[in-house]
């Protein structure tokens, strides 16, 4: 049985509408828990399920370079590459495979959908001078 405001008040000195209180509490919980959980669930589960995804974070070589620096793909299967730079502008190119991601700006997520047409192991690198150790800014794509 739903408690009435009068009954609750008599018991606790509290003047409140219990159904309203419950609805507001649920709204508050939905916001404070729903926002972070929903965001991470969508990003980590829903989006990758739509298409194979490579999540790449890019730093200067001094701070780790491409992460991951080895990418695995399947011939003929479209992959979504999500690249984020956390320092300066980088690029990602694999000339032998025909893959070219221009300017990966810091803080801006660069997304490219790519379908490899040949199998093999292909080097990829950064083509923008990004630090004194820029020539070491490399990785490998393995297409099976």
């Amino acid at each position, binding site marked *: 049985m739903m408690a009435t405001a009068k009954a609750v008040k008599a018991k606790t000195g509290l003047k409140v509408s219990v159904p309203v*209180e419950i609805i507001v509490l649920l709204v508050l919980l939905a916001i404070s828990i729903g926002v972070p959980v929903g965001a991470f669930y969508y990003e980590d589960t829903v989006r990758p399920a739509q298409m194979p995804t490579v999540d790449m974070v890019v730093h200067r070589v001094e701070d780790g370079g491409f992460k991951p620096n080895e990418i695995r793909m399947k011939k003929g299967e479209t992959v979504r590459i999500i690249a*984020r*730079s956390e320092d300066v502008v980088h690029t990602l190119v694999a000339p032998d495979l025909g893959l070219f991601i221009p300017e990966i700006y810091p803080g801006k997520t660069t997304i490219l959908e790519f379908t490899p047409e040949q199998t093999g192991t292909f080097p990829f690198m950064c083509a923008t001078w990004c630090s004194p150790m820029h020539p070491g800014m490399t990785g490998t794509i393995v297409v099976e």
Partner: protein
Amino acid sequence: MREELKGEKILGLMPADWRYDLLKIPVLGAVLRSRWTVLIGIIVNLFMFAVILTAGWGGTVIGNRNFAIVIIWIVWWSALMMVMVPFASRVWCSACPLPAPAEWIQRLTITGTRGKLPGTLGKKWPKALRNMWLVNFVFMGTAIFSGMITTRPWATAYLLGGIIVLSIIASLIWEKRSFCRYLCPVGGFLGLYSNFASLEIRRSDNAVCKDHKRKECFLGSEEGYGCPWMEAPFDMERNTYCGMCFECLRSCSLNNMAVNLRPWGTDLLVDKKRGLDESWKAFIMLGCAGLYSAIMLGPWGFLKDAANIKTWSSFGIFSVLFFGAILAGFPLLYGAFAWLAAKLGAAATTSRPAVGAHAAGSEAAAEAGLPSFKKVYLDYSYTLVPMGLMGWIAFSFAILFPNISYALPVISDPFGWGWNLLGTADFPWTPFLTGIVPYLQIPTLILGLLFSIDFAVKIGRKLYPNPRAAGRSVTPVILFLAMVTIVLSWLFMG
């Protein structure tokens, strides 16, 4: 209405005792009296802060692409200083979601009212700390890391998360909004600068409050809590600790509370509850406005690097200079001018023994009818409030206009994960009207100077009823205010 406001005109234009009660507008009265108004504000902001905390802890580390940095330090900060404080006092405090969970835990209800707060030990805040000193140190402890907090999303998230946790802990131990009043790093300067605001909550009719024994605005009633900020609304004269929660509008069964529009800065003329804690808050805020302008807007890369903790040694030197300049250097410099003000005021007093009495000390000065040096120092320090607020508004122009375009991408892609919720994720950085920023900043500073001089003259007249003494005494203060304005103008104009 306090007697000292009668007959005074702010800037020679606005009668200081003019008031217009917004509750006379029926719709507005109903809206402000409703508990739902504040709650809806909190719910909206709770959503914003849920996104901010998620972005801070889980979003991109690049500040200008992160919702937390852009919304807090560009949008919110500018809105706070340019709109909320000058026009609506501490209205932010009423909709701030950070201490809201703590308050709900205390009350064990969100929408209801009750006489007692069962969810707390309800201890009184220690008497020795019932002032702004602790807030000043908490603020300085936060401000020294501002280079990091305003650029690293995780640092912003930890700061906000820390405030939530601390407010909950504080609410379980101490009564009501002790955290907001005595610990919140934002609350201190909001309180001081709200004395300048053009909005206030006050009793409508003194006689009604005098005859009303139940003091519901302080103790609470069936319709509302006693003031959560531990103020006595029936006797409130200044905005400093009024959180604009409108609770007294609900609890007063005689409808004797008013939400008044008023001329700017009239609280600064109220010679009641002034204290050195508030003076130091004024020094801190004005000093920070100057230093932040030098760090964030100036051409000195080494300052940016030091504030940004490029190396710990440079940050150490920066910290010593930061604390030293703001907590000691600036108050001492002001003190020299205040000393001159006291000296000139005494010298202009006709009786020679009075001058000697002032030199002999505060007791002798009091006997001779002169204000003590402490009183002169303290009272004139409130003239720094309009200048400080205007300094921050001028500073905010330089933050807002070049950077506001970052807000468009982050509302579409709040975490920097490649989302495009509203189709604005690729909106490029577009500095906005940067050419006119100095033309807004300098008039703003001059307006602050005019207000400060106006209040200095009025405070001088209160300190020294003799017009000649008042005129002499206020001269060094005006000189100091002009000097500060010139320094700030130089920092803004380069």
